């Protein structure tokens, strides 16, 4: 396709978006109906699962190939033509990862009220994006976040630090997404995990490589539609079946009341003990108040500092639309996040009433499929069949013959994945949920990979190594780097690193400590100097990284040299680990220990979980920027005039990229 032709048709393209995606949504619904008919006709479940996954992957790939581009501004910022509403949808898909889609409801199931810290933290950050940072970066006119740092803070040294922060937080995050695709594909398609990881990789590359931001934008919208339909369908049906109203977000209040009543009943009947029952609505049992509010703050501020999110607002046609787009983003994210607690409540009620307290021979059969995979355990053994659980529980002395709360262990991923079966829905709905989970993981991985590859190709290669590189070479370098980063992330994911899920939380704290103070001060305080910002970024990011690495990988050294002590149990206030005894163990000073190490992740300052290390780093960053800036001369009049320009939506962008 000639570039001139694509320009002529682009106006029509934007105008026709509503019709295109409307048709697409209708087509997807028709496809679900078709598969439901196939299921009635007796097509085996496995085939249905494959059809779902491959059909959706094919659609994303077709969009990815059709929107390929050879223009820089299309590749990096989708030509800055994406309307607010659609950019909101794309951001929603960019934002909601496998962890949100599959893991969030499970976390809420396990942690009850305390789990809501994640829901709050992963939504409220958009307020900060809109009022403090996003629209100003749009006006600035950057291709990447390091672009802004470099311009505002005196060149390539600041750019380099910003790239380090970006790569540190994005790479761990993208690895977790690719791991997520592997888990979903292996669970639903029975593929081998390592194979599934690389199959997911192909899907990601097909979307992102040829068209960069432009292709990722239009596929993410398609992915959002799939993921939101997949997330809401099972629970809407379940709510209608149980309470007669198709709005689960309203009806689960009743489920919560039932859970609370049932909790008391279970205690009275000896089915649970005060020690192992965590009442669903009681706060601060799993997290201390400091850590609860710390998680909310770190996730919110981290949201406003993550480059792959900020970069989505570079694609809107205007500053005004950037702001509207943030509002739409949060609306589309909200649709999923305010439904997650409903999943948790319905599942918990099902488990508490239909599993706990049942005679071993009468438990409901939906759990055996998950038991086979080791995701549900009863009496310490995989709950693969009635015989298996009866045998396992008989082995426990004095077992009463009914399932008690302490006998039952469930993997958090099962909550969303098993809801269709709990509700007694046909398999086609389970396939739909798998397709939705894949869409969530792929779309986030696309956005993250693009953020990393763009930082490497645009900031490192073009701006620091070869500023005279012609367009063709810049795009080629961008694509080659994208490919290698993706393969690297997939290779890391296929080794199943043990910290992979914790790393997503760490990414937020690292982004918060490294980026937030410099971004905010750079826009809101003209007096911020380059030296101040650079010192602040290094200090904040450094402290956060030190706290993470020390508490996780060098806990013995933290105790011996840095005055760290044991974290405490939120419910009882008792220390998690007896430091004096643990320090006497032969492995006390072990470096890079596994999670089984008695002190790993269990020591720290001020009783602060290491996931909240941004709470240490960001304030230090602000302080250092403030103090160091005041020590030096104020920034040039010219720079101050640029900052004034950023603050006014009207007018040209500061950076004008030649393309």
């Amino acid at each position, binding site marked *: 396709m000639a570039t001139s032709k694509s320009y002529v048709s682009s106006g029509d393209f934007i105008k026709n978006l509503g019709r295109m995606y409307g048709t697409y949504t209708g087509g997807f619904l028709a496809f679900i109906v078709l598969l439901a008919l196939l299921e009635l006709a007796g097509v085996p479940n496995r085939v249905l699962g494959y059809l779902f996954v491959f059909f959706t992957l094919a659609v994303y790939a077709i969009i990815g190939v059709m929107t390929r581009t050879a223009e820089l501004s299309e590749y990096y910022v989708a030509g800055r033509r994406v309307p607010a509403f659609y950019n909101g949808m794309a951001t929603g898909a960019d934002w909601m990862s496998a962890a949100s889609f599959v893991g969030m409801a499970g976390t809420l199931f396990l942690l009850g009220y305390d789990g809501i810290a994640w*829901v709050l933290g992963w939504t409220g950050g958009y307020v900060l994006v809109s009022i403090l940072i996003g629209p100003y970066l749009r006006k600035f006119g950057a291709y990447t976040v390091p672009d802004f740092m470099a311009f505002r803070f005196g060149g390539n040294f600041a750019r380099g630090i910003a790239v380090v922060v970006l790569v540190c937080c994005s790479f761990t995050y993208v690895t977790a997404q690719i791991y997520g695709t592997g888990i979903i594909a292996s669970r639903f398609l029975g593929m081998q995990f390592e194979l599934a990881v690389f199959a997911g990789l192909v899907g990601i590359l097909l979307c992102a490589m040829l068209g960069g931001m432009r292709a990722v934008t239009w596929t993410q919208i398609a992915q959002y539609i799939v993921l939101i339909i997949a997330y809401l369908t099972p629970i809407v049906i379940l709510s209608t079946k149980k309470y007669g109203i198709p709005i689960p977000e309203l009806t689960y209040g009743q489920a919560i009341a039932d859970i609370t009543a049932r909790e008391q009943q279970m205690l009275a009947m000896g089915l649970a003990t005060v020690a192992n029952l965590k009442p669903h609505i009681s*706060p601060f049992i799993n997290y201390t108040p400091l850590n609860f509010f710390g998680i909310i703050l770190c996730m919110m501020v981290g949201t406003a500092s993550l480059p792959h999110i900020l970069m989505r607002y570079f694609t809107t046609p205007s500053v005004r639309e950037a*702001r*509207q787009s943030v509002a739409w983003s949060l609306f589309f994210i909200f649709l999923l996040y305010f439904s997650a607690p409903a999943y948790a409540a319905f599942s918990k009620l099902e488990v508490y009433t239909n599993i706990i307290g049942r005679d071993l021979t009468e438990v409901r059969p939906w759990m055996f499929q998950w038991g086979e995979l080791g995701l549900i355990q009863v009496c310490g053994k995989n709950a693969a069949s009635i015989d298996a659980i009866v045998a396992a529980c008989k082995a426990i002395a004095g077992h009463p013959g009914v399932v008690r709360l302490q006998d039952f262990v469930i993997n958090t991923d099962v909550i969303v994945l098993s809801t269709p079966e709990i509700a007694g829905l046909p398999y086609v709905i389970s396939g739909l949920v798998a397709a939705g989970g894949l869409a969530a993981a792929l779309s986030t991985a696309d956005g993250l990979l693009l953020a990393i590859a763009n930082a490497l190709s645009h900031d490192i290669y073009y701006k620091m190594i070869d500023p005279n590189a012609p367009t063709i070479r810049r795009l080629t370098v961008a694509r080659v780097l994208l490919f290698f980063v993706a393969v690297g992330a997939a290779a890391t994911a296929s080794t199943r690193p043990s910290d992979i899920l914790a790393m997503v939380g760490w990414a937020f704290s690292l982004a918060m400590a490294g980026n937030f103070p410099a971004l905010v001060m750079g826009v809101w305080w003209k007096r911020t100097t380059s030296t101040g910002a650079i010192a602040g970024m290094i200090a904040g990011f450094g402290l956060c990284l030190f706290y993470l690495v020390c508490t996780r990988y060098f806990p013995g050294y933290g105790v011996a040299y840095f005055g760290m002590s044991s974290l405490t149990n939120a419910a009882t206030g008792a220390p998690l680990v007896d430091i004096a005894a643990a320090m006497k163990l032969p492995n006390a000073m072990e470096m890079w220990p596994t999670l089984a190490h008695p002190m790993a992740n269990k020591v720290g300052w001020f009783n602060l979980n290491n996931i909240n290390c941004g709470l240490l780093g960001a304030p230090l960053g602000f302080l250092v920027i403030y103090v160091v800036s005041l020590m030096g001369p104020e920034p040039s009049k010219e720079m101050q005039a640029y900052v004034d320009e950023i603050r006014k939506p009207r007018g040209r962008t500061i950076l004008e990229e030649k393309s």
Partner: protein
Amino acid sequence: MNQPDTQANQEAHWAKTTRLMFIHLGVWLFFGYIIHMFVVPLNKIVIPILGFPLGFYMAAQGSLIAFVVMLFMFAKQQDRIDREHGYAEDD
């Protein structure tokens, strides 16, 4: 509407923008943190018909709704400020 791009106009625009920012940060602080500090007493209140304890409801839904509404309001309000001072982009 068509104000000149003078120093005074620029400062007035930024003062209003800053004020709006602090107002929204205040509301954000309230719904993000302060209200959840009172979760225990709020949980004693049960929302009629729906059956949610209020403290739980605010964290699981109430605050989220507040954030979404806030953002749409902010986009409007900031745009109004920009237009008043002649700094809004052409429609």
